[in-house]
């Protein structure tokens, strides 16, 4: 039984099919890349899996259980965590409080326990002074905090939506090793949406490619990047 699976997952908005009949699976300890052209439906796909959106048809299975229509907060409690492409750190809370939220509401810990577990996670991500207001964080720190917030849920599945965007090469390298370490230590199933091909190559073992909502290719990056359809739709001259 895979940790996470989708079966014929489809989402329509009015006339537009954003995600079309996508079936895939993700297992513990695995890092999966999700790539595809702009507007291919990558973010919508993560919204469907994490419960931010409900599918039009098809299924989402978490450890064999059908969670297709479970609300987002319940999926968070079951162990599906994610970060967001457009990040909104909670302005009126400190870094620590931002991270605690997941522990309090997903893992149902008391404030005291949540504080302790949040401190642990932040320390492992080297987040520095936790009493800071989030307004003063650098982009790298904000991205780390986003991951910390997701980890505080105590997840088994973690989706990272463009966490490397906006980071420079140095920072990207740091982040890659951090994500690898997290996945390994915690035995997580990780899905990564990323446009920078270097990141995908370094980080992932397997890649799925979406185009116009459809899954058009699947396999290791080295294979997928040679697929003519992928090159035409996505990589272009960069391949």
């Amino acid at each position: 039984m895979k940790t996470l699976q989708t079966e014929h997952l489809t989402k329509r908005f009015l006339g537009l099919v954003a995600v079309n009949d996508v079936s895939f699976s993700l297992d513990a300890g695995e890092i999966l890349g999700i790539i595809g052209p702009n507007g291919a439906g990558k973010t919508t796909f993560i919204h469907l899996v994490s419960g931010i959106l409900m599918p039009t048809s098809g299924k989402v299975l978490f450890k064999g259980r059908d969670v297709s229509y479970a609300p987002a907060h319940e999926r968070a409690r079951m162990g599906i965590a994610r970060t967001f492409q457009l990040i909104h750190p909670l302005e009126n809370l400190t870094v620590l409080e931002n991270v605690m939220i997941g522990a309090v509401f997903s893992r149902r810990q008391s404030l005291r326990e949540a504080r302790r577990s949040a401190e642990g996670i932040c320390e492992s991500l080297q987040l520095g002074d936790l009493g800071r207001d989030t307004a003063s964080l650098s982009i790298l720190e904000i991205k780390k905090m986003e991951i910390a917030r997701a980890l505080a849920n105590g997840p088994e599945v973690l989706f990272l939506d463009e966490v490397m965007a906006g980071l420079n090469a140095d920072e990207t390298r740091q982040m890659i090793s951090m994500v690898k370490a997290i996945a390994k230590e915690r035995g997580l199933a990780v899905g990564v949406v990323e446009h920078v091909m270097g990141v995908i190559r370094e980080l992932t073992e397997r890649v799925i490619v979406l185009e116009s909502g459809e899954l058009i290719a699947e396999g290791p990056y080295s294979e997928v990047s040679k697929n003519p359809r992928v090159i035409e739709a996505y990589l272009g001259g960069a391949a």
Partner: protein
Amino acid sequence: MILEIQGLTCGYGKLPVLRDVSLSIGAESVALIGPNGAGKTTLINAVTGLVKPWGGSIRFDGRDVTGHATHEIARAGIALVPQERELFPGMTVADNLALGAAYIPRAQGREERLLEQCLRLFPILKERFRQIVGTMSGGQQRMVAIARALMANPKLLILDEPSLGLQPSIVSEVFDRLSELKKDVAILVTEQNVKESLRSVDRGYVLENGAVVLEGAASDLAKDPHVEASYLGL
């Protein structure tokens, strides 16, 4: 010189972000490289009047524009593609592009030619010409933002992280077009994708901690050991 910045100091609240920065751009394209938090976006905001400089001067096209309002600077001939895109979400692609030219003296009377050029650059926008921008994906919106800026027929085009969220095929397309454009437009670009951007610009500045630490021809910078170690490699 098209843009000349002298001793620019600037920041938010009480916190200084830029310290005594000087740089200049002629009829060329220039990349601004640096880690996050170095002040790249602040520099752009200061040039476009979105934040008020504390000290120093900014001259554009021979005129002092230090502290001028954003719309005045835009009308003088600087077009900006901001990181956050800043489109008009309730309007169609067509309207967004038309507004890019409507208030800019330099673009008057050339709207059709400019539009044609933009649609050639981003064919998908032709398909989606009547679509409401707010319903498009993040990457598509970025294309609209770039096209809107080009509609202003700018003397100086500033792109803040243009490849953010764009698929690789489009990124290379954008950089190709930039190399084409730079014949008649000066370009200032900040880019995380340093390799790609250094390939397509003439010169570069490296900004660290609010100050310029390195400048030079793009080809030289690409070989600089510090740049190589910090910004290339992926």
